[in-house]
């Protein structure tokens, strides 16, 4: 792969706090990172970008010592090293601020910063005075002197917890700090604060790997940007040499339309309508209409409220305000079984924990949402269950030994087909698909796309949520964009371009919200 080396950084390789050379990593035979080189200079913010599945998280896990690369070298201060565990990576000065913060809720702020390396008195006991003083100093350096170091973390906001994680990294003398989607769960004022912390870290000479989808942050903070796509390195560039549309097209890359099956038939009547639907503060005032035969794409960043909207329609987190209408009639959906009985099916985003009971067999899984129909008298009709499962296996081309194979033994694509089979067996009229092809290989992906088109052609109304922009653009007849729990944009097929949708997705809406 071509890497565009710039400046003279590599000339004095010994000074680099970390450098990756030609790293490759495969899981179950699928290469998720392929021949990627990446380096960090002291005191720079280096943005790492790419769509979901582009290989970003694998790359940062390799740097953090959570994964070992299959090929390639990791070089720290000019010496080739191996990180067999996160502990070794820590010792080499690499720290991570996790997306799901790994803190101890019942311990104090000071202790969370120092746990595992507490200052000691001459007696070997914990020196609370020193620990508290140093915690205070660290937080002051992060402009977070307002945090009470004696408070339990339990009560702190996400933004404050993040500051503690950063302080923890500083306490470990980290030279490289990996920040994975640090602003995904932050409120706007916390975002501003985080950005000023990142700048002060840079001044101290800490190198920051900044993983984010949000363009404004990237352009405000980053010195360089590296883009990955499908596990390959696209380019590493100084931020001054790229602009927003350029970055988006680097991330999206391939031409979109040829991959996706064309629309069949025409849209029918409106079947689902939401007006003013809200759930607490995560889903706000959602209004849209969904027609029979239509695939409606719901785009947005993680945390923008897409999945939360789906969960509200499906009755997991029932609407606290507003109205849902089916066939023009208002309905009340307070539980998943109520949703199912109204003809709504939901293929959830997390297959392993929400979609399937993995130790159970294909037929048991498929029967689960259809028990009423598959019961004769008071007993489950085993023959009907098996027939239903065999039907799904042949209809969706599930590659399995038979209906009695446990689903955990199936590949990701086949597992997804089992989830689909379970829900299509309920004869739904509205199908919500949340990340329908996440973690699925290319072939199965195409099969699922084809199937979605076919279902829509037969009159199914499909609401699709996806973090992959090409999928949203390629599959959807219409695209809604969510941001901050609200719908902030609507595009029809012709106007839904990567640039247009991407811009609305990543814009920060503080001005509009203030207005």
């Amino acid at each position, binding site marked *: 792969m071509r890497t565009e080396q710039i400046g003279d950084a590599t000339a004095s390789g010994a000074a680099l706090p970390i450098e990756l050379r030609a790293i490759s990593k495969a899981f179950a035979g699928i290469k998720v990172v392929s021949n990627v080189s990446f380096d960090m200079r002291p005191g720079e913010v280096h943005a790492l970008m790419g769509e979901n599945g582009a290989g970003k998280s694998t790359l940062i896990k390799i740097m953090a010592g959570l994964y070992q690369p299959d090929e390639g070298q990791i070089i720290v201060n000019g010496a080739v090293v191996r990180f067999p565990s996160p502990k070794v990576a820590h010792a080499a000065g690499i720290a991570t601020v996790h997306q799901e913060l790994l803190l101890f809720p019942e311990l104090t702020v000071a202790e969370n910063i120092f746990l595992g390396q507490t200052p000691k008195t001459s007696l070997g006991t914990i020196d609370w005075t020193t620990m508290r003083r140093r915690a205070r100093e660290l937080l002051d350096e992060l402009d977070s002197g307002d945090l009470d170091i004696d408070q339990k973390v339990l009560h702190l906001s996400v933004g404050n917890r993040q500051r503690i994680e950063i302080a923890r990294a500083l306490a470990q003398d980290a030279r490289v700090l990996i920040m994975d989607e640090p602003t995904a769960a932050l409120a706007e004022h916390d975002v501003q604060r985080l950005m000023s912390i990142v700048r002060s870290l840079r001044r101290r000479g800490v190198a920051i790997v900044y993983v984010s989808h949000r363009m404004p942050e990237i352009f405000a903070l980053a010195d360089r940007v590296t883009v990955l796509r499908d596990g390959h390195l696209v380019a590493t560039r100084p931020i001054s040499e790229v602009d927003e549309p350029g970055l988006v097209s680097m991330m999206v890359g391939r031409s979109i339309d040829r991959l996706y099956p064309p629309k069949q038939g025409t849209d029918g009547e409106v079947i689902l309508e939401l007006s003013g639907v809200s759930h607490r503060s995560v889903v706000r005032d959602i209004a849209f209409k969904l027609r029979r035969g239509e695939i409606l794409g719901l785009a947005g960043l993680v945390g923008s409220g897409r999945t939360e909207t789906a969960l509200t329609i499906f009755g*997991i987190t029932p609407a606290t305000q507003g109205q849902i209408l089916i066939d023009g009639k208002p309905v009340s959906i307070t539980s998943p*079984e109520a949703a*199912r009985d109204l003809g709504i099916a939901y293929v959830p985003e997390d297959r392993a924990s929400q979609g399937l009971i993995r130790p*159970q067999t294909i037929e048991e899984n498929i029967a689960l*949402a259809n028990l009423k129909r598959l019961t004769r008298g008071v007993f489950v009709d085993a023959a009907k269950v098996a027939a239903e499962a065999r039907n799904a296996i042949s209809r969706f081309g599930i590659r399995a030994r038979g209906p009695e194979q*446990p689903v955990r033994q199936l590949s990701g694509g086949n597992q997804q087909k089992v989830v689909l089979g379970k829900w299509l067996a309920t004869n739904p009229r509205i199908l919500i698909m949340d990340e329908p092809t996440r973690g699925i290989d290319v072939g199965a992906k195409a099969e699922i796309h084809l199937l979605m088109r076919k279902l829509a052609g037969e009159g199914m109304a499909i609401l699709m949520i996806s973090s992959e922009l090409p999928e949203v653009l390629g599959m959807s007849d219409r695209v809604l964009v969510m941001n901050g729990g609200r719908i902030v944009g609507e595009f029809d097929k012709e106007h839904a371009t990567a640039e247009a949708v991407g811009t609305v997705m990543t814009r920060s809406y503080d001005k509009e919200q203030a207005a």
Partner: protein
Amino acid sequence: MTVAKLFRHETILAILTVIAMIVLASLSDKFFTLDNLLNQGRLMAEVGLISLAMTFVIVTGGIDLSVGSILGLTAILLGVFWHNVGLPLPAAILLAMVCGTFAGWVNGLIITRFSVPPLIATLATLALYRGLAEGISEARSVRGYPEWFFFFGQGEVLGVPFQLWVMGIATLIAAAILGLTPFGRATYAIGANEVAARFSGIRVDATKLWIYTASGFCAALAAVIFVSRVTTTRSDMGTGLELDAITAVVLGGTSIFGGRGTIIGTALGLILIQALKNGLALSGVKGDGTIVVIGLVLIGAILVGALFDRNRGG
């Protein structure tokens, strides 16, 4: 595949039970007599009824430690309603059973509505229900029940103890519900993956509430049989019974982590334990020494189960 595996565990258990019986029969010629076996069946029925419901509880990934206390409380209430309140005995029995069932429902409510872990919730109600039994009875026992009442615990139908019939029928019903009905499917699904079960439209909370209520009902039913068998009510009745029931269920192949288990396995586990207890007693091991065996069997069974799980997972 899993079905085949479950049966394999039960086959092993059945073989073990047969071996134990043969060994015990050779140790004491009193063991393998019809009288002794029927009598053992009589003694087994109370724990047996509780174990049936406990199987459902553990399959959902929960546990119910309060069953022994519910039994004690129901027994005490039966005596109090009849002796102190002066209700006719049939009404007293019925009302006491309603109270026992209600105690189970309260467990379910604490667990589902307030998300208290079942272990903690039922540990608290274990103390509460036993405490109520002690407080209400003030350590006074009630005796002098009419003759007809002793039929439940001492009577026979067609030469077989009455409670063995009850136990047999209850086992069939429980096996049918767990193995063949939508409710049983929901029970397994909740234990294997509660979130996925909810996302599949299973009424998770309602199912659990029913199961804990049923657990209370079974303990109450066992209480009536117990009182009838021993002809008296005392507040310490059923102390430690939860341990016997959990042991039988776990020995029967039900995973303590939920999602797997069968009624047949539980029944076999019960028989094996009762045979061991009886056989050891007949061979001269003192009464309380058999409790040690139960403890060892419980830990052993779970250890083997954990190793089995690890091999399966790997």
